[in-house]
């Protein structure tokens, strides 16, 4: 796989698109324009949206805080998110973690 691979996963019926950056960061967006904006912002991914789904905030000070995370090859199923460990994103800062 290329270092430059950006992915978006969508299940019709679901209103969300899940963007997966080559750095491992993930983001749940409400539409295609938003999801591409987020992916193309690498490495300055805006934190955020996903947290709303968990009722917790991932808002982190400063840019580049990683949202959530997956190791390589990790599943991007929504159900796996709860279990996902804090991030391996390149610019992740420990302060950004969800507890």
């Amino acid at each position, binding site marked *: 796989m*290329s*270092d*430059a*691979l*950006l*992915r*978006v*996963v*969508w*299940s*019709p*019926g679901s*209103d969300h*698109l899940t963007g997966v950056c080559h750095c491992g960061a993930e983001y749940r967006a409400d*539409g*295609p*324009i938003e*999801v*591409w904006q987020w992916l193309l912002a690498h490495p300055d991914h805006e934190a955020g949206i996903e947290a709303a789904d968990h009722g917790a905030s991932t808002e982190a000070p400063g840019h580049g805080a990683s949202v959530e995370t997956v190791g390589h090859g990790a599943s991007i199923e929504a159900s796996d998110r709860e279990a996902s460990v804090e991030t391996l994103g390149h610019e992740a800062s420990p302060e950004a973690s969800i507890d």
Partner: protein
Amino acid sequence: MVFPRNQWYVAAYGEEVGDGLLARTICGEPIVFYRTRSGDAVALADRCVHRRFPLSEGHRDGDRLVCGYHGFTYEPDGSCVAVPAQKRIPRTARVPVYPVVEQDSLVWVWIGDGDADPTAIPRAPWLAADGWVVVRGMEPLEARYELLVDNLMDLSHETYLHGGYIGTPEVAETPITTSVDEEAGVVRVSRRMKDVECPPFYANSTGIKGRIDRWQDIEYQPPCLYLLHSRIAPAGLEPAPDGDDSAAFHAEIVYGITPSTETTTFDFWMVARDFALDDPEVTTYLAESNRTVVMQDVVALNLLEKVIATEPEGYQELSINIDTGGLAARRLLQRMTDGS
């Protein structure tokens, strides 16, 4: 003109370029194509240096082209070797020559300056490989090429525009993954349908009676080449662990999306299959059905072009989730256009 330049485009099918003179405007550039006696395809600017007369309206003298207006005569390399009633030929008497490569039964032309690297031409090997049978055609589109890209990147339109042929309800209901390889410049959209209805297009050509697994894997290599890797198999039949998938049916659906002018496009469509190879009825059926499907798109896109022509400046369209792949394609095309 706003086209990605310094790119290869499909200009014709190999068999279209022969003894005659084929005129095609590609990315706004009028070009005349013919084949020399030694079998090489040639592409020259279709405009005499003298008074602009289209060379495609002239005739051949061996491998040379003779202008039909005053007889200016050109070699396949574009140099002028004869003008009427005088011996001295002006040094500037030369028409531009376009790099041409024939590969996978397609005639590719380089539009731009700089290095026309033949290895940069994307491949579609099924079009000229043993074990595959191809049906194909070309429809001139009265619409900008971007509309065809939009159309092909979102196959959920099959359900609505092509019901009864290739569309079934499941196409619009199945999860899709879109990916962009930023380095290679490729957009992929993958839809793997399991245990779904078999549309007539495939039921009639494969002979499958029941439900199917149907894969649609799009691979768009902007600006010109679009591939749809289509896999059809009886429901539950997976490729073998060693990768052998010979029990399934495969159709490689290929499009050459070639801008002609800003609002017209050459829609080259091809269907290669690896089944029913010796069955002429299947060949005829697929050719007719696919042309019908393509014409449904042509009618729709021509209509869209008219709508765009009359809409107020600054009209804002709306994009939803199904447009994820189309937006990615647009961005790569924009990047190519800006960079050229």
